[in-house]
């Protein structure tokens, strides 16, 4: 059978073929529109991503009142910048301090705040991250090159329920003269998951 043959010859693409066939089948039935799928893919590739979260963080760094609103009423504060939507229904923003470092995981699944960070990196969805960061966070952070002082309290947020988490990092020293747009360029995705510092 040609399918079996295909499977054995090119095992790497068996998954691709199956996914493509599923989409093709639904398109043929007229149930799923190819352009709707294109639109969703484009949406998360171009419109929504960590650049959103970076703008939020930069705004919080330069505007104390916004920072307060962000921590107290995160959904409303994010809506001010237009960053609402799916997987951002219930948001919590957790602020790092000199004594607290936050890091986010979803041990059961791959929950992630799409409206501010886009789609999660592969490592966030991986077995080792999900298994280890709740049990040995410093060892995991060390793999990211992040070595925290021993007296910093690590807080691991397991977002396997309905709240999605954004880490608000500390504004880095030496950034006093930077404006909001420049500050946003310092804020990487990993800073907002908690596996890096700006």
């Amino acid at each position, binding site marked *: *059978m*040609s*399918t079996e043959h295909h499977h054995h010859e090119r095992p790497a693409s068996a*998954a*691709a*073929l*199956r996914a*493509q*066939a599923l*989409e*093709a*089948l*639904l*398109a*043929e*039935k007229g*149930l*799923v*529109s*190819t*352009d*709707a799928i*294109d*639109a*969703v*893919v484009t*949406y998360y*590739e171009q419109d929504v991503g960590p650049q959103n979260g970076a703008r939020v963080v930069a705004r919080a760094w330069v505007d104390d009142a916004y920072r307060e609103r962000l921590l107290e009423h995160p*959904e409303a504060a994010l*809506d001010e910048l237009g960053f609402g*939507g*799916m997987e*951002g229904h*219930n948001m*919590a923003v957790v602020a790092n301090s000199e004594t607290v470092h936050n890091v986010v995981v979803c*041990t*059961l699944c791959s929950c992630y705040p799409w409206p501010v960070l886009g*789609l999660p*990196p*592969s*490592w966030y969805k*991986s*077995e*080792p991250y999900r*298994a*280890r960061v*709740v*049990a040995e*966070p*410093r060892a*995991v952070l060390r*793999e990211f090159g992040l070595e925290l002082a*021993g007296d910093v*309290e*690590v*807080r691991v947020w397991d977002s*396997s*329920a*309905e*709240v999605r988490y954004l880490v608000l990092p500390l504004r880095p020293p030496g950034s006093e003269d930077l404006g909001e747009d420049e500050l946003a360029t310092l804020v990487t995705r990993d800073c907002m998951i908690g596996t890096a510092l700006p």
Partner: protein
Amino acid sequence: MDGAHDMGGMHGFGTVAQPGGELPYHEDWEPRVFALHLLTGFEGLGAGPGGRQTREEMDPASYLAASYFERWTWSAEQRMLRKGTIAHGEVEAMMERLAAGEQVPVHADPAMAERMIGRLQRRAPMDPPPADARFGPGERVRVRRMRPDGHTRCPRYVRGVAGTIEVVRGADRLPDLTTYGAPAQPEPVYAVRFASDDVWGPSREPPFTILLDLWDSYLEPA
């Protein structure tokens, strides 16, 4: 359901840093099957437990053998088979047609595309914290011991562990029930704070804190 997906604390998976780990996906079909999954949900083409809940039903060996997006393909198929949107064998038949070189069918529907983006931008928060929540911030609670046959948001690693209410998040129906269409009333959901020693015993790392959002049904007074 205490399947392979409930992996908090498990050993043997290796290091987090892997080549390509920074990217959300690596092949073109991966974001497409992700989008397809969302779309079939919004368009009512699937039935039964949702995608996440369906993926938890994979047998553990298959779950761990599958890539992340292979699991999404699988759950999309399962949900559409349950609904009758597709029939057994149809995907395989299309795989053969495509493997034989047939053109991939295309279906255009710009209204559906617009509808989808609208859905992605909609916010549907849980109810606000109830005034009569059983526990308040600072109170000690213990996670019940349990072994639910179905979907749950209470991971194994906190069961039986005592923690402290951090904040009342809001009110929501228990996923353990709503997943299967069983009646449920909104109940308080709390962020609960656990000391690492209470969860894992003494470890080589300095003590740290683990926080989870847990439904009232999962908790009892400590």
